[in-house]
């Protein structure tokens, strides 16, 4: 598999693992999106437009989010990802606490923008809203996340 395609697969998998915090559900949802994009784009899967990717992930997120109750204890996936140990260790539980309390759109916007690196314009188009709304969600999201990780060992 080409490196670009591998990176795309990794981005989608990471989005669902962090967003749903349930390993099996996340891999199933990510697999469905990848299959759908492969069916749509075939060999050029790695060059899927960002807006299409955002919309596909958002739709799949909404479908699978219902199967992961919000009030369940935060479960950290262990087998599906490899957390970096250097140069600094990531306290993934802070993310779990934030993800449990934040709204779906805030979490998704934060993941797409600051974790996966999509632009605000792509996000606005993918979410079918204005750039200002996206920036508002991002501001709220990082502020909440910062408050959660304050005093922790995450950063």
């Amino acid at each position, binding site marked *: 598999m080409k490196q670009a395609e591998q990176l795309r697969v990794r981005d989608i998998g990471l989005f669902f693992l962090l967003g749903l915090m349930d390993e099996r559900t996340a891999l199933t949802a990510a697999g469905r999106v990848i299959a759908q994009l492969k069916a749509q784009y075939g060999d050029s899967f790695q060059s899927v437009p960002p807006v299409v990717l955002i919309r596909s992930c958002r739709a799949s997120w909404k479908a699978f989010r219902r199967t992961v109750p919000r009030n369940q204890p935060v479960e950290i996936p262990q087998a599906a990802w490899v957390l970096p140990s250097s140069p600094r260790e990531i306290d993934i539980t802070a993310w779990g606490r934030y993800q449990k309390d934040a709204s779906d759109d805030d979490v998704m916007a934060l993941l797409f923008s600051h974790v996966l690196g999509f632009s605000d314009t792509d996000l606005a188009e993918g979410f079918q809203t204005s750039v200002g709304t996206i920036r508002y969600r991002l501001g*709220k999201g*990082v502020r909440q996340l910062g*408050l959660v990780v304050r005093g922790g060992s995450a950063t």
Partner: protein
Amino acid sequence: MSQDPKTNKRKLTPFLAHEMLYDYVTGHLDAERRVAIEEFIKTDRESQNLIDAIKRGIAYSQSLREIQLSAAALAELEQAENLVSISKRLARWSSWPDSLRWSIIAVAISACTAGIMVLIPWKSIPLFSPGALRDENTVEIARIDAKRGNQNDANLVGGAQADLADESEADSNATGDQSGDEEFAEESSGQVRVPPAGQPEPLKVSPPSTPPPIAVAVAKPSSGTAPVIPKPVTAVAVPTPATATQPTAAARGRGFVYRAFMTLSDLETAAPKITQQVKELGAEKAGEVELGWKRGTGRYYHFTMPEANEQKLLEALRAYGPVRISKDPHPRQMPEGEVRFILWIESGA
């Protein structure tokens, strides 16, 4: 925003300032707003805390980029496919086995070729029409369909039809007197051969440029425009010239046969001698009927011989009596230096 009476500038409210902190941190504010926010932050402790939180949140979220998927999870996702993607992948021509692809190409080419061969109206193309192979010495009088062919066989006249009858075939079939009779009747007398019912034969006559010595087919032209089947005409025996006619340039390249006719009073005595002389001149029978085959009161010779001995043969025959000979076109072409003879010697005064 409230107005500052001293500087005459608008002053940020805490709510607006807090909402613009993210844009301030990420550098999306214009210069005027940036200055206003910076001035506001200096005096607002909560804003300072929020800026710290935003910066921590951004730094933490960016640190999440370093998380990698495990190899097992990555492999599972890479294999992810649904029915549509599987069918699309299988439908990709490039992913098919080479043997299957080439087989399909071969079948497609064969089908196209067969289709072209079927669809092209070959008969309407002059080059490929049935008459294209007819030599220029052949003149078509009329076309008769198969049903009417039997009825009109009686219209076939003259030695023209006999010319096209294959002597060799007749010979090869001559296992008894009857076959020899037929061959002789065709070759020597020039009479019409009437085939049995149900065996239509093609209607062709020899070319006018090399007139058949035995009979001529005459088709009376019709005054109407509708095609008319030629009226039956009587076969007319035409005396053959005493000397061989010179073949035309066109006929020279084609097959021909020498037809000779003699009438001898002492045939019984002369026939064995003639047979012997013919054999000495290199003659070989052209079929299964032996040389000098006896039929009624005559003898039949059908043979091939070297062309160099042609004059010697004629001289030998003229020693017994007058010889009438003609050179006629023949569908079977002899090898270079070989000639075909059909000689009939009738017993009589």
